[in-house]
């Protein structure tokens, strides 16, 4: 469809972008890769008066190795994230999950920051950010602030980023020795959204699971941690049967919805099956 009329600005810096957002008032919106924004515009589900394009702000692009963590500019495309050597060697879970996002066309334009700021419960990357305890840097008229992933996702399509704010970068701590990761995505077609996704990071010591972090995609209004599975797994032997048993509580604390992809019962079933699979795969069981 044809979007309503809008103005368009392309700032060169974060400060300029915030100024443009403030000047545009209520109806101004950030656009970066446009892969979620354009469908909304074309379906006329959004009709902003000004679009502030952040795709070409240098500070918001690129990937940096900080030693014990990795910082990724919010405007870095999915393709750049998944093909970065730094990401592949230190944040493999993110590289793997990003490779499941949509198709090459979308991955060439869509951005990591856009995928987080959009707050789509079916997006794959929020659960990864949550499982890996990422920190988001947000800039606004009052300066910059750091928000932990667990506080970032507020509700359906709502995040900690205010209307006059911009997500600038995401910092993800490295996992270190003994950790393995896996993203299990369940969808019907290769380029489809996740019906359920499970992001698992598991630390194995002496044949036992020392620590597990599990993020669930599309199991509630926001990505959630499967905390009861995480605790049930601690100290468990790396065996498929034990992991399966510990994964039975995967649906605890989730709020699965019913849609064409799955009803609540089936979604909860998938959470259990996929959690077991993701954990087994991450732990090398």
């Amino acid at each position, binding site marked *: *469809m*044809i979007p*309503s*009329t809008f103005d368009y600005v392309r700032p060169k810096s974060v400060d300029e972008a915030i100024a443009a957002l403030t000047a545009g008032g209520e109806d101004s919106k950030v656009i970066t890769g446009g892969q979620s924004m354009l469908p909304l515009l074309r*379906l006329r589900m959004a009709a902003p008066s000004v679009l502030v394009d952040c795709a070409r702000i240098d500070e918001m692009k690129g990937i940096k190795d900080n030693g014990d963590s990795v910082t990724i500019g919010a405007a870095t495309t999915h393709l750049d994230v998944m093909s970065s050597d730094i990401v592949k060697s230190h944040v493999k879970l993110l590289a793997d999950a990003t490779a499941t996002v949509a*198709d090459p066309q979308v991955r060439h334009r869509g951005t990591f920051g856009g995928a987080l700021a959009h707050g789509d419960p079916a997006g794959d990357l929020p659960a990864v950010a949550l499982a890996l305890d990422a920190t988001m840097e947000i800039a606004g008229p009052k300066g910059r602030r750091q928000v932990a992933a667990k506080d970032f996702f507020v509700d359906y399509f709502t995040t900690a980023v205010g209307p006059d704010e911009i997500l600038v970068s995401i910092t993800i701590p490295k996992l270190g020795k003994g950790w393995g990761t896996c993203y299990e995505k*369940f969808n*019907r*077609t*290769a*380029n*489809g*959204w996740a019906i359920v996704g499970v992001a698992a990071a598991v630390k194995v010591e002496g044949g036992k699971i020392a620590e597990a972090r599990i993020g669930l995609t599309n199991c509630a209004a926001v990505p959630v941690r499967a905390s009861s599975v995480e605790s049930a797994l601690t100290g468990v032997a790396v065996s498929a049967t034990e992991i399966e048993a510990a994964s039975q509580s995967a649906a605890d604390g989730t709020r699965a919805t019913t849609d*064409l992809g*799955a*009803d609540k019962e*089936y979604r909860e*079933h*998938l959470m259990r*099956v*996929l959690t077991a699979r993701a954990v087994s795969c991450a732990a090398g069981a």
Partner: protein
Amino acid sequence: MTELADHVAAIGRPIKRKEDARLLTGKTQWTDNIQLPGALHMAILRSPMGHAKITKLDVSGALKYPGVEAAYSATELGDLNGSVPCVWPVTDDMVAPDFPALAKGEVRHMGDCVALVLAHTAAQAADALEGIVVEYATLPAVIDMEAAIADGSPLVHSDKGTNKCYTYHLQPQGDSAYAEAKAKADVVVKRRFINQRLIPAFMEPRAVVAAPMGTSGELTIWSATQVPHVLRVLLTLVTGVPENKLRVVAPDVGGGFGGKLQCYREEILCVALANKLGRPIKWTETRSEDMVATHHGRDQIQDIEIAATKDGKLLGLKVDLIANMGAYLQIITPGIPLLGMFMYPGIYKMDAYDFTCIGVFTNTTPTDAYRGAGRPESTYAIERIMDELANEIGMEPMELRKKNWIKHEEFPYTTVAGLTYDSGNYEAATEKALALFKYDELRKEQEKRRASGDKVQLGIGISTFTEMCGLAPSRTLGALKYVAGGWEHCTIRVLPTGKVELVTGTSPHGQGHETAWSQIASDTLGIPVDDIEVIHGDTRTSPYGMDTYGSRSLAVGGQAILRAGEKVVEKARLIAAHQLECSPADLEFDHGTFRVKGDPSKEKAIQAVAFEAFTAHDLPDGLEPTLQAESTVDPQDFSYPHGTHLCAMEVDTETGKSVMRSYVCVDDIGIQINPLIVEGQVHGGLAQGIAQALYEGAVYDSDGQLLTASFADYLVPGAPDLPSFTTDHTVTPSTTNPLGTKGVGEAGAIASTPAVINAIVDALRPFGVNDMPMPAHPMTVWRTLNAARQGGK
């Protein structure tokens, strides 16, 4: 000019398609690329409701928007509001409601046209829709077909007093034959299959430009259509623009699958408005409009009963269909189930056949032809029930098929449905397919997985299909009450410089006609493929034709090409003989050159003859100048391609997800003109048939909201979702046309759906699963499996 000596037989060569460079790069004229000065763009306000009375409708607000020239509802449009035609009244008492282009007071499906705006740009027109004031009072909607024919159902058309469109019976052996067959049977298997509703989802959205062309009084309409010729006749009848003033052009068209075999509301509106306002009117649909306003396909409830002896000999088949018409009838809506009617017995011999179909109106988008049109539905039913029967009597499903199919030496064979299949070799195709598939090895692996209780079970699905295509002998169509014929036309002109213009009445929309038609003419005329230009899709340059659908273009149109080519050669022979001073019978014609028998130094190339025919200085007495001929051929019969399709599915019993492991098909489409094009058609068809089995399905809620109204919810698979297909063929020429060809446009889509579902059911058979609703959504598979495990059926 290409050296004549290079010319070798073109038929049978996998030549790359001539048209691909321009189609793939988009360097061509799609309808939406056509920009005419002074054009007005049309935007349509569509019903968001399944069924409602329009209690208020005021379009005047739209006129205040920038760039808007006019806005219409049915009231303002008055007599220009033509009705969409249906050309197939299948019974004398068929209920045929009026289908106005713009709804009159009541909307009957989501997407029904309510009002329209004309503006200088498409964006302005879209904006101005917001200025139209419309209020609806909800009426009860009926979506479910069985509910629609139950007493007391809300009516889609209250003035008709019923939701039943028609009831059609076919009992070739008389009305008690099936009962008698059944009485003799040891086993009767009955199943209800749901052939779900599909959306054609062609790549290029529909688009129309209608323009008065200056002083000639001609009105030209460019439309992304499969059927420019059919469309011209219908638009004339609907709008009153005289046929000889109306030119219909189908520029390059990006797919159709039956979805562009239509005379649509928007086409009628564009012509009527262009004619009234005297300026070009343009409309291009959005994908969102396409999902609700382009006709849908399939949507049948199939109650199938098969009767057999305990050792697997088929005795009779009973088919009771309920077919969803949608809210209105479009071009051949009611006839689609009847195109399948003859094919329920498939390739099998039996004694009795009994068919009934009830057509039903519901508050949904109208249905009509979609790749296969009736035959995918029948093939699904027979190939599914054969597997169920095999299971019931404990017979290997392929053995059951072998026991009952028509043997090679029995052709021609008249089936229980009354069709005469001209040729076939099911044995050969099956043998080849089984070997390619490694059938026995896979069965062993299946045994192993069953024994070990593997979480991922393996299933093997068979579909030994045939179909009728090549629509159609005109008299047969007449007997079925279809209001047009099924002939096809070709004109061939050899120009003075030896180049050829081949005018065809078929209208390609991606199939590769330009290449294949050139190959046929090349062999007939002895002129290189590259020297032949195929002209199509424009009623000015190709005035006669019945267009492209139903795998008819080659099977029917090919005959006209051959015949026109032969006539050209006959005429050229007269000229060559005259100039070489011999009798026509003394000339041999080989690779484009006439040679005097016994004196091969005396020769004349057909291109040289064409020049002589142009100068006309030295022609035989009484012979007309120019080298050209035309032919219009009415086919003698349908053609019956067949094939054996085998599918291996891995089904994850924990999640219900089914993944295709391998797919082998051996198709017999008779003589292949271009094997590369054949393979392309098979691949695309397979993808669509597999999509019905696994992914696609239009879903409405009970109010008539289409829930699968975008590609986010209506899942069309892509290349990553499909395995690499193994395709092969056998060649059993058709005996009903001189080229020996059969159609291939729909084969893949017809054959593959039951192969996939049979494979999934086969994988889960040990758990007691005996059916699988389509699409086999993982959740559906999981639920079905759970129910079977708990002892339910």
